[in-house]
């Protein structure tokens, strides 16, 4: 569990960092953020495919348990 404490610590640090580093961005200043290339996942269809491939080949496939994907028994 010490591991999760470390990660929790990292998260807290990030929040603190944000308090310092985040600059208020007005809605009309968000043109760049709204561009398609800045989407969190620009190609969700392909990402789902890749996640399915990784999930059937690697042990760390957690985090998307309810996306289906079947057995991947091969």
């Amino acid at each position, binding site marked *: 569990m010490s591991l999760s404490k470390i990660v929790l610590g990292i998260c807290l640090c990030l929040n603190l960092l944000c308090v310092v580093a985040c600059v208020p961005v007005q809605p009309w200043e968000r043109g760049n*953020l709204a561009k398609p290339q800045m989407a969190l996942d620009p190609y969700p269809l392909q990402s789902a495919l890749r996640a399915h491939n990784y999930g059937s080949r*690697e042990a*760390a496939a957690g985090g998307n348990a309810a996306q289906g994907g079947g057995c991947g028994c091969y």
Partner: protein
Amino acid sequence: MGVIKKFSGNPCRNDGIGLSLKALTAAALILPGLFHPAAQAAEDDEVDFQYSHYQEGKRDILESETTRKNNANPIEVESIHGGAKISLTDRIKFAFNYTQDTWGGATPIDSGPFVAGANGAIKTIGIEEIDSIGAASPLISHRVFFDKNLTPYKQILKDGQFIHVPDKRIVHTLAIASPETRKQGDFKLGYEWDNAAIDIGGGISLEDDYESRFGNLNGRLDFNEKQTTVNLGLSYTNSDIDAILDHDIGSYGNESNFNQYIQVIDEETNTKKIIGNRQDWGANLGLTQVLNKSASLNAGMSYTRSTGMLENPYKRVEYFFIDPDQTPNSEGLLQGGSNAYIEQRPHERNQWNWNLGYSQYVQPLDAALHVNYQFFHDDWGINAHTFEGDWVQPLGAGWTVTPRIRYYSQEAADFYQPYFFSFNKRPSQRDEFDPALLQQNYSSDQRLSGFGTLSGGVTVAKQFAKGLSLEAGFEYYTHQGGLKIGGGGEQDFADFDYWTANAALKINLAALGRGASGSDGGNFHNHHTSHANAPAGVMVAHTLDKAGDIMLGYRYMWNNQDGNMLHQDSAVSLANLQNKGCFSGQGHFNTCLAAPKSMAMHMHMLDLMVAPTDWLTLMLMSQFVNMDMSLRGTPAFTGGGNLAHHIANGHETGGIGDTGMYGLFKLWDNPSHKVNLGLGFSAPTGDVDIQLRRAHHQDGGFVHYNMQLGSGTWDFKPSLTYTGKADKFSWGAQVSGTKRMESRNKSGFALGDMFQGTAWGGYDLTNWLSASVRGVYTWQGRTKGEYPRNKIDFVPTPETEACPNESFIIDDGNGNISFDQAGFNQCIVEIRNANKEGLKSAIYTDDAAYRSNPADLASNSGGQYVDLGLGLNVNIPDGAFAGNRLAFEWLQPVYTRQTGYQLDRDGALSFTWSYGF
């Protein structure tokens, strides 16, 4: 609202202005309180299709060191996906997806010391005896010498004496899977507030041996003027495992550790199943934070708890028992004997994931950089790290190129080893199971080993005008023990690689809507609707109106066969069928042991029509096909063997079908009557060499003729169509045909030619709905040629050997020597007959193995059919989805006359969606 209206004109008139307006519009949408105009589809309303191919590289089983050949094709997966996201109202969103994968090929089932001789060969029926992994048995030797450090030793001949030398190498045992199909459907229904959203989703994934049902609930909350977003999600999956135990593996492995989950489903054939259930609960929490005008950060964590049967029921482990009381041999080595068990994993797993991502807009290049790190930890002892990065680079004119790289490294699970030891005497009976002799959990699944992977790829996307975009992606992936962080990964026997290629087509409904309301929109969609009301089952019935028009269509056809076996137009009992239905191409009757019980064919077709001139429409049609057949035994089938496996499992195939290319010429075109001539070709892009897996020590051979994915030949497809319309009535007729332009495909056969004539009448019930009635006559020719025969295992006795001249010399003792010509002739006739019979019998043996089902004989194909079609067509005249057209048709068989012995027909459903722009 005003802002959006202003910018939702026609972005296609000027790409540069259009794009920047789009970005501004999208930015404005982040403003609280601004939503999409009601009459239009929302910005993200979309229909998409995707195809993907996964190809694994060949596994190294050290074949160069043995006489064995690795003939097995590695795993290959063909996938299609279709989905839509639709705004039902301003605030209610609905999305659904359908995904289908068909996979088959060779995959590892366990691993063991190379010296134990995994992948041993078995002689196959009727085939020249070669040591071939394509026909592998999973048998590994029961005895291996180990030293005190448990290093395996191999025996070599040196100076005339056998001695043992260390050999640490490990190999996988490969097993081959026949093609199998997984189908998944899922949906999501969401409600959006100004600063929050909630959605509920669910779905089902179906495979023969695995069925998953899942549901999820997600919430999103925006605050801090939408600079901060928090996501929370919960999910639940319930999966049933229903795996038939492989006869091949069953005969050498030990399944008794799974006795509590094993059910015998057929006593006669000793067919057994593992029945199990698993459940997965998941929760995730995510945070997205705008850092400044050009950067954002996202962080998340998730927890998944899995319980129940977490094993892969097909994976085995090799356990070597080393008797502590044995006396070492003269070299001080100990002997270990092996048993193979089904892998055993804990029945509980708790998994945690943390991820951190950063996105940076790079102003000078108008590009974006995304980097992501993920850490995974579970209570099986696995820690894993994933680093990912991509660079999204727009190139102008709608093109975007995105290179990406990913590195992953994981530690091994506590209970993973390539093979195991027990320092006990080996149980004398193979199926004896004493858990006290084994670890609590054990697995040799390489996915639980320590390794690293490196993958990289590129995505190229092109945004066309009118909301259409294409994406194509490629990725190469390598898995290596040596890539693990900190070293200590698995040996290189487990290394493998794969590549994937995919292509997707996306249609943004909002952009289409803008096209409609733009200055050149007007009556835009209605151009295509006149005379286009042919029933859904009629192909290439209409042309586009004018040069520059484009139409995109999706077509689904389901064709089902079920019921009696027919001989011509009358039902035939299985008892009669077994004696007459398997008339071999070699001119004799073979006994049918199995027959089809049902057969379904699903075809997904995507067609793109383009009109380069007013009088010509070009059409490209790609197909994705999948088929499944269930089987039944005839009275002559007494159970057991290879066939029992096939009857219990049924057969499935799937993948890309043939590709059609058509030119449609307008011969006559006025408001009431239209005639078009279609000249088309079908390219043989579908597989025609799919084979079934080996089961019960026997190769499966080629799958039934009608379950290959294409014709394998270039085909000519002409058609002539007439359509008419007056007031609310419409009508039409079409003759079409298929002429095979080659006499044989690469698998030795050619499907029969086809002719079809059809006529229909329709009536507009409302301005958006019409109904149709249709009659269809189809003549389908018989398949010519046949699959290549196996090498027949028969050597004729030479006549000179059977009837040597000297045997027919008659010496009467008085010096009179004569030749018994009559006796010699008789002998020659006899030996020729015997050779003929011998060859026939060898062919019978081959037929008994590979042609014992009427569907495996080319002569049982083709026929004449009459069907009645009832259809409905929906044209959406206005609103957000104006221009979309849906059509359904059910074809009910009225008369069926099958050539030879074939399954009766049940009916066919056609569904089409098309959109002109």
